[in-house]
């Protein structure tokens, strides 16, 4: 556990006035507030740090103790003993830890989220620091949202999937709708951290990582693939067999088909997310393969063909 320089955290001098502290805190809070920096854990951590610094420095009594003993927090016990002796003797200055309640302006953090250094100096749990009461209002806050990642194969997204996931000691049964996309996040209400001051629990956000176990490329509910066709099929037309996610299908190739021609197989893509019975399309790009190792006869025929043009 290291000493935390709260002045440095708030980017102010030790001689800063209460107005300077308030100004510095508000400036940093506007920059780092979690609601303005969603999914940015660094900003959230820094926001906690500036809250802690503000908690101490904006309270003249805490600030006085911090300035006096901050760097010597390891000796808090000794100070506490000394304080108790002084109190028994009928006077003196209130010291560290237990027995005394402090009020706070109720930022969105539980005291358990403060650093060990803070807990050591100002007490935690049933000790020195409590939210609410006093002149400032107590606000209920929703618990912290939690994030988890779930990996699925692309072929698993063809149908609704029932899965059980473990979050800590809790097991959650989930029905994952067909067609869920890579990087998509779903919210499960009330499965996050505990609320504060009786506030509701946070939510659990599950982000899906979809591993493509097929030869198709995916864009939303549509699939893309390339299909090689022979020069003769491209020129004269014909029938080919192509793979789709639910088996092989026969496809007619029009005569004089050009290289890179794209055809659409309607409804042969992935199911559309939360749209029962609706599917994306499969796009096939034809790649014409040129014959190689031509025989003498073939060369002659191609020469004849070329002369016809």
């Amino acid at each position: 556990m290291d000493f935390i320089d709260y002045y440095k955290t708030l980017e102010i001098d030790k001689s800063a006035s209460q107005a300077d502290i308030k100004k510095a805190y508000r400036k940093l809070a506007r920059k780092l507030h979690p609601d303005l920096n969603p999914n940015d854990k660094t900003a959230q951590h820094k926001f906690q740090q500036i809250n802690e610094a503000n908690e101490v420095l904006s309270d003249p009594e805490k600030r006085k103790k911090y300035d006096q003993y901050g760097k010597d927090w390891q000796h808090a016990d000794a100070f506490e003993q000394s304080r108790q002796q002084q109190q028994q003797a009928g006077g003196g200055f209130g010291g560290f830890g237990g027995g005394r309640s402090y009020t706070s302006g109720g930022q969105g953090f539980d005291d358990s989220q403060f650093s060990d250094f803070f807990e050591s100096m100002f007490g935690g749990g049933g000790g020195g620091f409590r939210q609410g009461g006093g002149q400032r209002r107590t606000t209920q806050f929703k618990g912290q949202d939690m994030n988890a990642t779930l990996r699925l194969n692309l072929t698993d997204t063809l149908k609704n999937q029932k899965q059980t996931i473990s979050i800590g000691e809790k097991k959650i049964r989930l029905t994952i709708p067909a067609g869920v996309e890579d990087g998509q996040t779903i919210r499960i209400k009330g499965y996050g951290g505990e609320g504060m001051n009786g506030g509701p629990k946070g939510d659990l956000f599950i982000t899906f990582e979809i591993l493509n176990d097929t030869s198709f490329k995916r864009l939303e509910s549509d699939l893309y693939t390339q299909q090689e066709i022979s020069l003769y099929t491209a020129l004269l037309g014909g029938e080919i067999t192509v793979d789709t996610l639910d088996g092989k299908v026969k496809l007619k190739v029009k005569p004089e088909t050009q290289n890179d021609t794209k055809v659409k197989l309607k409804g042969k893509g992935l199911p559309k997310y939360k749209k029962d019975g609706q599917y994306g399309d499969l796009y096939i790009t034809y790649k014409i393969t040129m014959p190689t190792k031509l025989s003498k006869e073939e060369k002659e025929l191609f020469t004849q063909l070329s002369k016809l043009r």
Partner: protein
Amino acid sequence: MGNEKYILVSHFVERSNIEVDFVQSLHEYGLVAFEERENEIFIDEGDISEIERLFRLHHDLGINYEGLDVIKQMLERMHRMEREMDLLQKRLRLYE
């Protein structure tokens, strides 16, 4: 209107400790929609986390209603751009 989707504003403010005036002001500034039925005012359950977020910004940072409107719009725009960027990245991968 399904009962499971809308909740009474009075129930919400009671449970959340957010002042009714704040919710009323959000409505006046067009930041939250009300559903009125039989002289009762409801809010969409899906708007609750947004109201809580706006309250935190108002309470923690002292942002006024005009500021909340700007932030809401900017965040929505940011999320749209993130989604668009994600889609473009996926499109690019088709050519890899």
